[in-house]
């Protein structure tokens, strides 16, 4: 590892969460990216109980299918909320991912993933969270037309993966566990597209 991620907690600092917009074009669409809700959101169930479109979507689809394989059955994504839509107590629980209960540190809001504000964005320039329980599948071409709001940094993706794994399987992996898995995966991937994370340079010892 050449340079570790700039965080040791549940999430990177807000300033390291998203790829700067000036560099985003270099990064292919990946799991964890923030995407605009399509105009015809209702067709895909991406609307609230009053039929208003969700604030945005976070991609939970496997990154590899967002590229050459084309996600033939639609791209999986989850609902994004503004953090201010929930109580003050819940906001703190989402930001931390845990609470102290009777001397223990206990996971809270396992289905909710904190998302940092997108700098300069009119409606998503504030704290948000994604709800892993509220899923939709939307054709890739529809999402491509709607556009990506922001690309998750490699560091943020570690945090989202860790949260998702706990939510789905109750595997309480440490940040180091997830980092090691991603490091090996990316270092070994000779076809890795876009800039690599600083902590996973390309391996040169493959036979």
């Amino acid at each position, binding site marked *: 590892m050449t340079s570790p991620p*700039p*965080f*040791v*907690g*549940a*999430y*990177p*600092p*807000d300033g390291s969460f998203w790829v700067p917009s000036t560099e985003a074009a270099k990064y292919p669409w990946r799991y964890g990216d923030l995407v605009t809700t399509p105009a015809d959101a209702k067709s895909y169930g991406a609307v609230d109980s009053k039929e208003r479109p969700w604030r945005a979507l976070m991609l939970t689809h496997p990154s590899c299918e967002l590229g050459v*394989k084309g996600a*033939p*059955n639609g791209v999986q994504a989850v609902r994004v909320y503004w*953090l201010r839509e929930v109580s*003050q*107590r819940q*906001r*703190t*629980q989402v*930001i*931390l*991912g*845990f*609470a*102290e*209960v*009777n*001397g*223990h*540190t*206990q*996971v*809270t*809001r*396992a289905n909710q993933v904190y998302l*940092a504000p997108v700098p300069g964005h009119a409606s998503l320039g504030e*704290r948000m969270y994604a709800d892993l329980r509220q899923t939709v599948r939307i054709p890739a071409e529809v999402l491509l037309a709607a556009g990506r709001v922001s690309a998750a940094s490699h560091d943020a993706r570690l945090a989202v993966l860790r949260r998702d794994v706990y939510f789905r399987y*109750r*595997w*309480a*992996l*440490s940040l180091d*566990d997830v980092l*090691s*898995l991603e490091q*090996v*995966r990316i270092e*070994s*991937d000779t076809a890795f597209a876009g800039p690599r994370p600083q902590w996973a340079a390309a*391996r040169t010892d*493959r036979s």
Partner: protein
Amino acid sequence: MTLATFAPGEPLERVGHRELRDKLGPMLEKISASHSAVEVVNRGRSEAVVVSHDMYTVLLASQRELDDVRDSVALLLAAVAAGAAVPSDTLDRLGIIIPVDLDALQAFQATYPVRITHGEDGQRLGRTPVLSLESYADYVDEPDEFVDVDE
């Protein structure tokens, strides 16, 4: 069973090596049944304490609880110092209210390595097994002969 079985300040029953050897079976049965403990001495010097398995389990769990509390006290002190409003039953009970500053909280969590001890439903989390990644690279690339059922 609780640690109260050990009365603080009350001396333990003591046995010497020879007595322990001669009465091992009955003594172990007694320890197991009464959840008590016996101190093993050799020439007047204490060498070991024999406890029932149940009591040993309780002692281990108590040590783990103590480790948790030690970690969470350190966490809460650090959070208070940083002005980070960590949601906390303990702080609530003590009436300590930290004004919520989400910027401070987000910055704090990024830099403080928290060991999560319990799952969302309150159950203690086990240790993650050490992963062996040595052969992982062999499986990264899909062999061409795999059939993709989606196509």
